[in-house]
């Protein structure tokens, strides 16, 4: 439970992996919060526009009314603002290990996710192939990172979930949805056996089960968004 007098409100959207990332962090830290669902396509709320005027995006975490934006920044904020809550620290305490966690956190969004999205969304065959190539490299790097960082333990964070588990774990439902939508498999038993096992292990955790969106619903959502985009561009 959040401490007495601490109000946490999360502006989000059920399908956003970046919102899921924040919910995972809140869940693993044992913090309760008000979950506010934004209608991103119908009309963003006044509160969202006021709280994130620069990007107008979710997630936004409001702590006693003060907004924190950008999912990885929010996760680090949660870790630092609530040091004595029920869950363990998400970032390691050792400065070098923290640097490693931050490095791979950036890599997950800037390289792994970016190339995966390119391979899924790109229109030309050439761009798609390039995206797939880069994704394969990114997965290979991530697999090696997991091996080195976990040191044989179940999670990036060791025995318990840490920063990288939350950062990458947030993508797991979409990774599964992408397989159904595009036939693209991000983690597989042959080329990334450790990450493949980790993904299953992570998704089986109670907090993950409570937070990660239903894969079939994501598939339906993606198809709906694609149709809406196609209709818009043909007008």
């Amino acid at each position, binding site marked *: 439970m959040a401490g007495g007098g601490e109000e946490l409100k999360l502006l989000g959207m059920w399908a956003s992996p970046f919102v899921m990332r924040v919910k995972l962090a809140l869940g693993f830290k044992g913090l309760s919060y008000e979950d506010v669902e934004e209608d991103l396509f119908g009309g963003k709320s006044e509160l969202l526009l006021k709280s994130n005027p620069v990007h107008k995006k979710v997630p936004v975490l409001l702590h006693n009314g003060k907004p924190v934006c*950008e999912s990885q*920044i929010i996760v680090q904020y949660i870790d630092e603002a609530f040091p004595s809550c029920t869950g363990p620290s998400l970032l390691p305490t050792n400065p070098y290990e923290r*640097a490693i966690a*931050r490095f791979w956190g950036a890599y997950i969004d800037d390289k792994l996710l970016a190339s995966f999205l390119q391979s899924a969304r790109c229109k030309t065959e050439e761009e798609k192939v390039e995206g797939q190539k880069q994704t394969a490299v990114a997965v290979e*790097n991530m697999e090696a990172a997991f091996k080195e960082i976990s040191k044989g333990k179940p999670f990036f964070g060791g025995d318990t979930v840490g920063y990288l588990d939350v950062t990458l774990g947030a993508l797991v439902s979409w990774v599964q949805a992408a397989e159904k939508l595009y036939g693209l498999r991000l983690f597989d038993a042959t080329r990334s056996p450790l990450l493949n096992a980790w993904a299953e292990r992570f998704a089986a955790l109670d907090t993950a089960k409570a937070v990660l969106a239903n894969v079939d619903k994501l598939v339906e959502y993606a198809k709906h968004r694609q149709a809406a985009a196609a209709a818009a561009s043909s007008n």
Partner: protein
Amino acid sequence: MASARGGDELRLLGTWSSPWVIRVRVALGLKGLSYDYIEEDLSNKSDLLLKSNPVHEKVPVLIHAGRPVCESLVILEYVDEAWPSTTGPPLLPCDPYDRATARFWTAYVNDTFLPAYRALFRSLTEEQRAEAFKNAVPKVETLDRALVECSKGKPFFGGDTVGLVDIALGSHLVWIRVVDEVAGTNLLDGAKFPGLAAWAERFMAVDAVKEVMPDAGKVLEQYKGFRAKWIAAAGSTST
């Protein structure tokens, strides 16, 4: 330079004009840390660089007691945390909310401002230049407002002293001015953005910054060299 605490070995792999390397050099200077600087030839990367940053093969890389730290902002936070009680004040504030704010604006510099500025840096035609400039100005407006919010009337984004946001943005100032000179633009226009322009002067006057900023004339020559290559490459693609 003041000596590193505890005789820990510090090496920095960099290139003389890279603003990302300058970020790290400014931070190390502010912290009073001495280090071995190794100039890399990016067309012929050293074994040490390739071994230390196999994922990106880029500079800067900070090697501390043999262990590499990569990515300029990761290095900055590492330097702040690994040497908490050095001569200079912390690069990040102590309060978690203020830290989140500093990280937000640093991410804005990296993910929103710099890509827009990069389009100006890379523009070859008058048309591209005008488009890029038009797109970059609103980002500068936002940073001008951010300065007011973060500084709360004090000289820097970090308050009384230089902080993470100051370093992240300020380290690009020589390049911004060089690109302005060649493009005939004025991105940090003192008339439109007096707060930010004054901040830029203050940042450039800080000792730790003056010591490591590359010579503007040399940067200009390097930029002209890049442009000549890009123009030649653009001209040689047949239509």
